[in-house]
């Protein structure tokens, strides 16, 4: 790990994190930090524990040992509403009631900031309008989610997370069910949001997309982080063999310059 010496500013980190399902340990003694204002992509083969890690970071999964630290405090000991004001989450299995419109969905993002004494305000309205604009959904605000394309729907969900106005944004495979064009739409939206200083941590299945859209990769295998750092620095044929058990040749994308995999074959 090349970043071992410099300790980057990171509001979210893990300390000796141990995550398990029943008797099965998924992640053990993980010490990881997610640099502020960067897009971090967690990559690795199926079953490597990347979604479990994200669930742990999002306090969906209580650790067996160790802790996830948000601003230095154990995320599981912080009031969940307070966490929701700092960390927004887009899970993989999103579901919305039939007929719910885009703007209705996005309004939910304001919930962590509302309470008995602070109901719906003008500020909330402006923030929802802003989220609609960022996700380029103004024209579709009153459309129902089930009448839209997968990419539009996913942008609406991300807009909800944006309306939450948190410094951190967690996304679990935000493009998993989308075709190429819609994937691009969603990743570009995520990049736009990162430009405003939001720290993004996402699980990404497709390594090429991760290399292109992330500043920082966390490569996981069998519950361990085997490499972490900027994609062009850490991605090597050896790492890919270790991760996926395949041989490949690395090329630079002629347009973006980011690594792409060619000639993939079984090791």
């Amino acid at each position: 790990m090349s970043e071992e010496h410099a300790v980057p500013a990171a509001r979210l980190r893990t300390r000796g994190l141990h995550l398990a399902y029943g008797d099965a340990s998924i992640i053990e003694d993980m010490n990881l930090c997610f640099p502020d204002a960067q897009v971090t992509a967690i990559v690795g083969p199926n079953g490597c524990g990347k979604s479990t890690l994200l669930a742990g970071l999002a306090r969906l999964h209580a650790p067996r040992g160790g802790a996830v630290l948000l601003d230095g405090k154990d995320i599981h000991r912080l009031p969940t509403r307070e966490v929701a004001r700092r960390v927004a989450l887009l899970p993989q299995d999103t579901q919305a009631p039939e007929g719910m419109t885009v703007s209705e969905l996005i309004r939910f993002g304001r919930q962590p900031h509302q309470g008995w004494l602070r109901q719906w305000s003008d500020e909330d309205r402006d923030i929802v309008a802003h989220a609609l604009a960022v996700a380029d959904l103004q024209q579709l605000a009153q459309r129902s989610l089930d009448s839209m394309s997968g990419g539009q729907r996913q942008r609406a969900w991300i807009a909800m997370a944006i309306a939450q106005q948190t410094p951190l944004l967690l996304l679990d495979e935000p493009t998993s069910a989308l075709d190429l064009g819609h994937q691009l739409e969603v990743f570009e939206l995520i990049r736009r949001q990162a430009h405003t200083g939001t720290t993004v941590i996402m699980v990404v299945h497709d390594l090429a997309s991760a290399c292109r859209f992330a500043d920082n990769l966390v490569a996981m295998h069998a519950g361990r982080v085997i490499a972490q750092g900027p994609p062009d620095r850490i991605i090597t044929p050896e790492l890919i063999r270790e991760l996926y058990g395949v041989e490949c040749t690395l090329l630079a994308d002629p347009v973006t310059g980011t690594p792409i995999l060619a000639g993939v074959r079984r090791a």
Partner: protein
Amino acid sequence: MTNAGSTRAGLGVTFCGAGIALAIVCLASLLIGAGNTGADLALATLLGQSSNEEARFVVYELRLPRMLMGLAAGAALGVAGALLQAVTRNPLAEPGLLGVSAGSGLAVAIAIALGSSATTLRISVAQLGALAGCLCVLAAARTRGVGSDPIRLVLAGAAFSGLLFALTSLLLLLDQRTADEIRFWLVGSIAGRSMDQVTAILPSMALAAVLILLVIRSLAALALGERTAVGLGHRPELVRLTVVVAVALLVGATTAVAGPIAFIGLVVPFAARALAGSDIRRALWLCLPLGPLTVIGADILSRVVVQPSELPLGVLTAMLGAPVLVAVVRANRLPSL
């Protein structure tokens, strides 16, 4: 699809319309009856222009408590149905279908068999029974394969209700005195209830209302999935438990005084969602006028269809509700919540 009810103003219009319809039905329930007191005489009595003692008794001592009972029971059952459907994410979750009413019925039957008859005791007993029923429903709904399939949950509920009704029947066989009292009550009716019984259930309804207001925002967020709700800072387990207690308070109180009235908790939220969209916050508001509207409307029908006698309300709501259930199940695709 953006229906009229999904805007704030649209909902206001729908709500007012339902309120006006409810006011008309309430008035009609004071005027129309199976007995000798006709609508004209009842109206004169209401306006204070008649000194007929019998009419006075019929309108103020029989029909008025009955109407108020219908208001309370309708609101309680409609809201309870909508809540149960939101918390199980199942459009078919209805207190009567899932064994919540049956649980409360069995509890009351046991209490009667043990010699109880005080109204207030019965309410808390019925609420405990309803709570037990609710927790069973929740456990079933959280079971893999059952919760994700609305029809399976209803099947599980039907089996559970069947078991509870069998136990209740067993009690009926054991004790003749109990049998007569329970059989009358088991049909479900808002007729012949006293003002005392109406006021006896109000504290429970108020408590349930407070509980609902405490978690309504979180409950709405749960419709976006458990993980999303956690991400928004809610606590799903706590929300579900609170809702279940509120449902038990409502269904238990209603069942204790009116017996099990089936299908109100299915039909009313179904209509409310159709009019207001699927956000539970709007649907619940609309259940408040729609529930009593349905119960009182059905109660009026029950007085006139077989004049001069009356059809029990529970029988009538089942006859009206069963086709709605079939319609929901036969729809191309069950609406997801």
